[in-house]
């Protein structure tokens, strides 16, 4: 393993950058902080790519092993219970290293241009480095507990970055919402970890997987034998762990934080809320996939939650008008794809869904980061998030428009762009396992194409009169070079990453997977996507009466969808009625009477007692002397008696 010990620098560099830019944020200029962050992330990206090359190159003829490059005991409680910190290299962690460092590098570079002139840029870059460090630590975790630590660290950096514009009340509310919702989900995750650590006898992934996938092992028998409410402990732990993953990955019904998280700076949305952090839940399920595979119920739950989230988010995305919120719902929908890809997958030869899911994670990171960065360039230019303030921008920003179109084609699943290949594999896997999920996935693909092209047309075509705008748009053309270069690089990645032979590298068991190309299935999927694009072209290429007419015709349904199915309102209602109305008074009474009462009682008793003896302290030395003398006499007499 010595050959890979340099990968520790992939973690150390972002941490150092965080410290330098964070502690020196008042001393060094934001641009310098940006350059430091970009350089360090660039080195990490190069190291990651080199690692990927040597890892996949060296073991190219056999099974990809799981290498523990570092494994140090961090907290050891007893012989059997110790928490390690380490770094593991296996196909998915190597892939995630590449994804995270690449996208993070692009976003750092882009942010230099995007945040130009911001006084708090140094703080921004230090948060960004903290996030990169945490995310990289998460993907190389060797055990559940280490993962949990970094899981919370990415949560906190997400909180900090969403609330970056802390003078905006909506941003503050969004950051709190994101933190509380994901924290609530992480509560389930922690309980799941503890149950799994208890039944598996270890927190280490390799130990858990080898014990809990062997039906003969004592741990497996305990885990499936003992139960709670008629459900075995193993199932409980997996469901609770999936709850943590669903919270982080914004799966229904824990998705409510993601659209609001768009209050953060756009590059942050690209990095955290599109490409990396939100796929942590998918990564978690993939990491424990062999265990999930032992419990069909848990796997079905993953599949159904994923499929329903994909559909649900796609429907909402069709009605929204905020450019970043549309992208947020599309992210949720695409993560739903990854989830049900895992949910319908099998092991080994049948692991097409797993491979497709990881492939989609990879391609989605590229094209969704591109979409967000493109949206950031547009917002930078228009100074508004509402699509109604945009339109006909293709003449003013031709390169951005082209790149945005490329990413839209990719997410819609049009060949030869990357999204087509990965989505195709997920859908094929779904058809083999569960036709209903396949149907939902196919319909969602059509919706995806529709709303993405709706967005594209509304921004870049859709000529509108500008006379009602308070100030006409400036004559400025494309975004600055630091913003264009990452977008062009990501556009290139979107073009080529689909041809990457992923099935040879990232599979459920480490062995290359044979995939067959189903022309008929591809044709159906492409047909559905083209229908979506065609509908969007009819409605939104030019301003027309159709969208409003359809909205009116749908009436209540449209309003329901536009208000995001009232999920936020339901949460508020539950919080008000249940927590504030029922739980809080009881907790309040308990706090005031029992907790405070106990303290006050102790205080009162001490007060009364000391009041009665305080007169002894008279300040008269001779009084003390007499007491002392009396005391020594008593001791003396006692000594003679006894």
């Amino acid at each position: 393993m010595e050959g890979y010990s340099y990968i520790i620098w992939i973690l150390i560099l972002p941490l150092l950058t965080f410290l330098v830019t964070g502690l020196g944020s008042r001393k060094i200029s934001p641009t310098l902080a940006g350059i430091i962050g970009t350089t360090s992330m660039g080195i990490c990206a190069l190291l990651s790519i080199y690692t990927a090359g040597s890892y996949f190159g060296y073991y190219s003829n056999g099974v990809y092993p799981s290498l523990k490059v570092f494994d140090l005991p961090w907290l050891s409680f007893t012989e059997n219970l110790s928490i390690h910190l380490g770094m593991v290299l296996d196909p998915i962690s190597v892939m995630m290293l590449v994804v995270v460092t690449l996208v993070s590098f692009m976003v750092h570079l882009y942010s230099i241009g995007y945040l130009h002139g911001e006084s708090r840029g140094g703080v921004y870059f230090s948060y960004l480095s903290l996030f990169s460090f945490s995310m990289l630590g998460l993907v190389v975790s060797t055990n559940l507990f280490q993962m949990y630590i970094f899981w919370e660290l990415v949560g906190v950096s997400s909180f900090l970055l969403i609330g970056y514009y802390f003078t905006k009340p909506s941003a503050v509310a969004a950051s709190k919402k994101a933190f509380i919702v994901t924290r609530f989900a992480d509560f389930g995750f922690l309980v799941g970890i503890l149950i799994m650590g208890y039944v598996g006898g270890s927190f280490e992934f390799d130990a858990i997987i080898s014990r809990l996938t062997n039906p003969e092992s004592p741990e497996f028998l305990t885990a499936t034998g003992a139960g709670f409410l008629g459900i075995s402990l193993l199932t409980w732990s997996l469901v609770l762990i999936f709850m943590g993953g669903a919270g982080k990955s914004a799966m229904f019904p824990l998705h409510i934080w993601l659209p609001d998280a768009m209050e953060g700076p756009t590059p942050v949305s690209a990095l955290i809320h599109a490409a990396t952090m939100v796929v942590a839940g998918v990564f978690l399920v993939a990491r424990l996939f062999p265990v999930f595979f032992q419990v069909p119920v848990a796997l079905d739950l993953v599949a159904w939650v994923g499929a329903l989230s994909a559909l649900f988010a796609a429907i909402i995305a069709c009605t929204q008008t905020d450019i970043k919120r549309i992208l947020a719902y599309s992210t949720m929908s695409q993560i739903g794809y990854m989830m049900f890809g895992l949910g319908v997958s099998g092991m080994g030869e049948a692991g097409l869904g797993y491979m497709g899911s990881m492939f989609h994670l990879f391609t989605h990171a590229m094209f969704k980061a591109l979409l967000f960065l493109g949206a950031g360039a547009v917002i930078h230019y228009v100074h508004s998030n509402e699509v109604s303030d945009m339109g006909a921008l293709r003449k003013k920003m031709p390169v951005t428009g082209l790149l945005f179109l490329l990413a839209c084609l990719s997410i819609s699943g049009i060949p030869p762009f990357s999204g087509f290949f990965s989505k195709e594999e997920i859908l094929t896997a779904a058809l083999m396992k569960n036709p209903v999920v396949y149907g939902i996935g196919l319909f969602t693909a059509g919706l995806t194409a529709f709303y993405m092209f709706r967005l594209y047309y509304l921004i870049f075509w859709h000529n509108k009169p500008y006379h009602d705008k308070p100030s006409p748009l400036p004559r400025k053309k494309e975004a600055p070079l630091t913003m264009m270069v990452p977008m062009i690089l990501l556009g290139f990645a979107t073009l080529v990453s689909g041809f990457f032979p992923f099935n040879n590298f990232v599979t459920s068991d480490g062995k290359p997977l044979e995939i067959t190309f189903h022309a008929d299935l591809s044709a159906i999927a492409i047909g559905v996507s083209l229908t979506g694009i065609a509908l969007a072209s009819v409605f939104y290429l030019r301003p027309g009466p159709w969208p409003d007419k359809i909205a009116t015709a749908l009436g209540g349904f449209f309003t329901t969808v536009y208000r995001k199915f009232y999920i936020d309102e339901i949460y508020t209602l539950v919080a008000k009625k249940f927590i504030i109305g029922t739980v809080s008074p009881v907790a309040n009474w308990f706090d005031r009477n029992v907790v405070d009462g106990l303290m006050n009682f102790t205080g009162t008793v001490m007060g009364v007692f000391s009041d009665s003896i305080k007169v002894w302290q008279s300040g008269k030395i001779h009084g003390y002397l007499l007491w002392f003398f009396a005391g020594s006499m008593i001791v003396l007499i006692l000594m003679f008696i006894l």
Partner: protein
Amino acid sequence: MISVPVTHILFVSFALFFIGAYGFFTRRNMITMLMAVELMLNAVNINFIAFNRYLYPGQLEGLFFSIFIITIAAAEAAVAIAIIINIYRRFKTIDSDDIDSLKF
């Protein structure tokens, strides 16, 4: 050679100790109280010397203890007088009954 019995010497030290104790309890002047403490210390010194001389003539522990006590008494007198001077500066008196602000 030894003409004075040990009881005589012990009687002297006994008398000296209780004269000191009496002075310590009855006097209000701090300097006098300090002098009374010195009397008690010297009574103890005499005790040590006497027992050393009459019970273990070949050993030196009693002498050592006396020398220790004399040394400490000197230091203690210096510290005590310093305290008394400070008290006088603050309260303009060294009568121990008038110095009673350190109370509840």
